[in-house]
């Protein structure tokens, strides 16, 4: 049933998702936009985990790792957005180019 779609097709999709995420992180100047790019990158990693778990081995280790990655992504989003809101309260801006208080 799954003859036509192989492991490499999923890897290509994950690679495209990863590239878009890196592009988002590199070009965005909005801190929330950068966090969205990080979420895209983590999703690409999860697709790789589950694709290798499905095509490579008969156990659930890959799926379990992807669940841990999802947990850490949720933690990262919560802390990251709390930091962004704190920055917004202090500087009234979330443009990362304006955050140069530590710039020596």
């Amino acid at each position, binding site marked *: 049933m799954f003859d036509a779609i192989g492991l490499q097709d999923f890897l290509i999709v994950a690679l495209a998702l990863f590239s878009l995420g*890196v592009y988002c992180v590199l070009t965005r100047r909005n801190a929330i936009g950068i966090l969205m790019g990080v979420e895209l990158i983590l999703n690409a990693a999860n697709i790789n985990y589950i694709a290798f778990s499905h095509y490579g081995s008969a156990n659930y280790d890959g799926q379990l790792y992807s669940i841990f990655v*999802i947990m850490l992504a949720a933690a990262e989003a919560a*802390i990251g957005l709390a930091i962004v809101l704190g920055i917004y309260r202090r500087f009234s801006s979330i443009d990362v180019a304006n955050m140069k208080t530590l710039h020596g």
Partner: protein
Amino acid sequence: MEEFSLSVAAFYFMAGLTLLGAGGVVFTENIVYSALSLMVSFFGVAGLYIFLNADFVAGVQVLVYVGGVLVLTLFAVMLTHQIAEIEVSNKSVGRVPALLICGGLFLVIAKALRGAEFFTTPGGQVSESSTYGIGNLLLREYILPFELASVVLLAVLVGAVVLSRKEVIAPDGTPVPERETIPLTEGQRVMSSPRAALAGAAAKQKVSDV
């Protein structure tokens, strides 16, 4: 054309949904549209998980990402205003170098993937519901990471509360930590506490009555 089965069509639909959503996140100018495109991308990824027989992870993806992370992101977008102003809200800079870097990365890795030989087991795919196996693994072999995850989530809970609480502002305008007491004169302290002020007034009343 006989190879074009329903599963192939489903795969291309899910992959297209994922990549279209990601493209919306990356290229739209309004950050609210970016957040909503992120939801489309998350649903596409959940569909890919179902395609790979990972039904439990697909459910977790929808619950945690769409129900949690995305709502959190939308809250942050709404709380930091200026969302209507494109130049301020979602500016992109350095598009050309970033495009070169990411395009080069994509082409190099794709070429490597096309040339690679992966060891796959054609008969080894798990076909029943994955929840039973995942639950067994989580409570047997992966019990330590499972418990550590709960500690991490507790730390995140406390950290988010600490990061987003309001700071106490002293009368001269400088922010002070909550533990530090603000030095006050005796009169100010009575004024600041309504119960103490009432008690003082009542005592004065009694004195005047006598």
